[in-house]
């Protein structure tokens, strides 16, 4: 066991991948000598060279598009997109090309490309640096989407993403990059399956499903609720596509109440999908409507008011009160 931050854990995971898998390589803007804007690739170019850690031109479509070509030639590229709001120039390549290549080739071609995207707000940044666009990608068949919430998961999930033969987008909770935790680099343990949700805290009165940056918020809300005598179960979804509905449904059948929280706007979001599926799978167990907590239907607001936008402990507790009132 070693203590490290999420950023360092991803760095170590990438180092392990580059060491173990000679066909893997990293691509992105400023990922070389600078080590990326969040220093996630710090030191890797010195260790593996410029053919394996490729500083690219500033062109997201070009990054994803060339990564697809490298994958067609048998390589496993890991692309870094600098910020969530800057992925869109590459959106066409991701949705019309990367997601569909295996299907449109009748299974003859595989494109195991990994795309790392730091996402979410709470860092007091300027426009386009705080968004949560995961639902836009989850809606596209052919992609897998995972998001770690702690260093141990981060270390293993980035390696599992590279090993996966499907394209995988790893959304990295940027405001938690400096969150420290224990990492077992010898064994993934409970993190063996990146597409499985984890019950982080057991409870009996309500279930709160979260992922990525809101995991610590939900755990704190559950602590606060416990002081008021409410037993809240917290699930870290970990995988946004596919979603581990078995774990979520099992929990709801026990608690009868479900709150889903994410930073992304609630309209058309992952929470809506979870609410719909759970209502189909556990209708008779539900004591209350599924309640979503999320961003508003507006462009991500300016940093000085982002606290009013982002779901926090109180917003989750307010939703809990509403659920418990039924």
């Amino acid at each position, binding site marked *: 066991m070693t203590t490290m931050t999420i950023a360092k854990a991803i760095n170590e995971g990438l180092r392990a991948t580059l060491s173990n898998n000679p066909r893997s390589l990293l691509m992105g803007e400023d990922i070389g000598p600078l080590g990326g804007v969040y220093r996630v690739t710090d030191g890797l170019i010195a260790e593996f060279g410029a053919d394996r850690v490729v500083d690219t*031109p500033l*062109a997201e479509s070009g990054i994803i*598009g060339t990564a697809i070509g490298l994958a067609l030639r048998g390589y496993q590229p890991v692309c870094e997109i600098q910020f969530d709001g800057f992925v869109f120039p590459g959106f066409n390549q991701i949705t019309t*090309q990367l997601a569909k290549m295996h299907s449109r080739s009748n299974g003859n071609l595989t494109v195991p490309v990994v795309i790392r995207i730091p996402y979410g707000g709470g860092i007091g940044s300027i426009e386009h640096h705080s968004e949560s666009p995961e639902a836009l990608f989850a809606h596209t068949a052919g992609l897998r989407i995972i998001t770690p919430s702690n260093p141990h998961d981060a270390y293993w999930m980035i390696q599992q993403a590279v090993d996966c033969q*499907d394209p995988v987008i790893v959304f990295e909770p940027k405001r938690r990059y400096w969150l420290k935790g224990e990492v077992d680099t010898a064994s993934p343990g409970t993190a063996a399956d990146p597409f499985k949700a984890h019950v982080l805290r057991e409870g009996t009165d309500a279930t709160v499903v979260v992922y990525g940056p809101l995991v610590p918020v939900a755990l704190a809300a559950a602590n606060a609720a416990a002081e008021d005598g409410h037993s809240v179960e917290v699930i870290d979804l970990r995988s946004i596509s596919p979603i581990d509905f078995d774990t979520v449904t099992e929990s709801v059948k026990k608690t009868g109440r479900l709150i889903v929280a994410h930073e992304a706007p609630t309209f058309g979001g992952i929470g809506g999908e979870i609410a719909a599926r759970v209502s189909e799978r556990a209708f008779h167990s539900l004591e209350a409507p599924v309640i979503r907590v999320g961003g508003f239907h507006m462009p991500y607001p300016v940093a000085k008011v982002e606290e009013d936008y982002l779901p926090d402990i109180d917003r989750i507790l307010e939703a809990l009160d509403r659920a418990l009132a039924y």
Partner: protein
Amino acid sequence: MGATHLPATEFDGIEMDDRLEAEAEAQLGDPAGPMVQLLGPDGTPGADPVFSEYAERLDAEKLRGFYADMAAIRRFDQEATALQRQGQLALWVPLTGQEAAQIGSGRASQPQDYIFPTYREHGVALTRNVDLAELLRQFRGVSNGGWNPKDTNFHLYTLVLAAQTPHAVGYAMGIQRDQKLAAAAAAADQTPEPKAAVLVYFGDGASSEGDVHESMVFASSYNAPVVFFCQNNHWAISVPTSVQTRIPLSNRAKGYGFPGIRVDGNDVIAVHAVTEWALEHAREGKGPVLIEAFTYRVGAHTTADDPTKYRESAEEARWRAKDPLERLEKYLRAEGLADDAFFEQVRTAGDELAAYVRKTTYDLETPDIRTAFANTYVEAHPLVAEELAWFEEYSAGFADEAKADQAISDGTAHP
């Protein structure tokens, strides 16, 4: 400042006086170099200080082969158009007029080269031994990609304009890395792989897409072994090339720092020579090349298009006079390299190909939607599995109903 600075065909159909051209030159710098042409529209051979040498490598058999290929693909094109008109294909994308650009460039490639087409490169597909009946699967609506690119190194058609250009550069970057590994293997007394390059096609319309720009930037930055082959067929559906560019497209290469060559795209000998040179250049590690094949889409963009709405028939007639097959036929006959029997044999072979394509099109099997479930992901996926299980149950319900209906009509059961 005379109009001779630019090929006379550059602004066909557009009035350009010296003043306008002078303004254009003032803004755009050097005028275009001349177009490489080794066989004129009347079948007269031309000369070029660099590329004649490549043309001289072609023996009579190769030249007859070029003609046979061009005639075969034109006949195929006619057959596919007919199949669409008869409702057998959902859509067809004709290539007539572009045979020399496609056969010349495709025949210049080596088996180890990898090719990324757009959706009109039926002639290139022929040179890569793609079964032309398989090529029709996509247009019949039974597959989104009818062949396995690993068999022929000819990638699937890409319909999103220019999206394949960065794939080509990435593939070329993979070849660079493979060559380093191969060099290490060679040092260990293993036979090295033959050097390879990537050939990627796009059109004058797609040249405006950002992906073409990004691809050329990446290719230049990493000196990738890729040849960009732009077929300037003068029309992006209904919009003329002059809306996409005010300079010869080949000139754009200068801005990226690699060679750009404009070649007469209706001259199969010149196209072959230029492409062979460019692929050698790329394979030898000298970096990318842009080729602009100056040609013309004689037919419609697709069978859903109506060229009479946007261009004059006189323009089409001018280009028919530069027909790629006719000029090679004139040359072969004048030089005594082919006789009537050869051309008759080509016609017969074309009819046989057409008959084969027609028959196989009728026989193309409609896939089961279960294959789409199976191919969405490589690895097991719970949502796909769940939806497939639902679909099976739902379908089974209809099967039970059909069985019951059958039993009623057989008289073995009552309603």
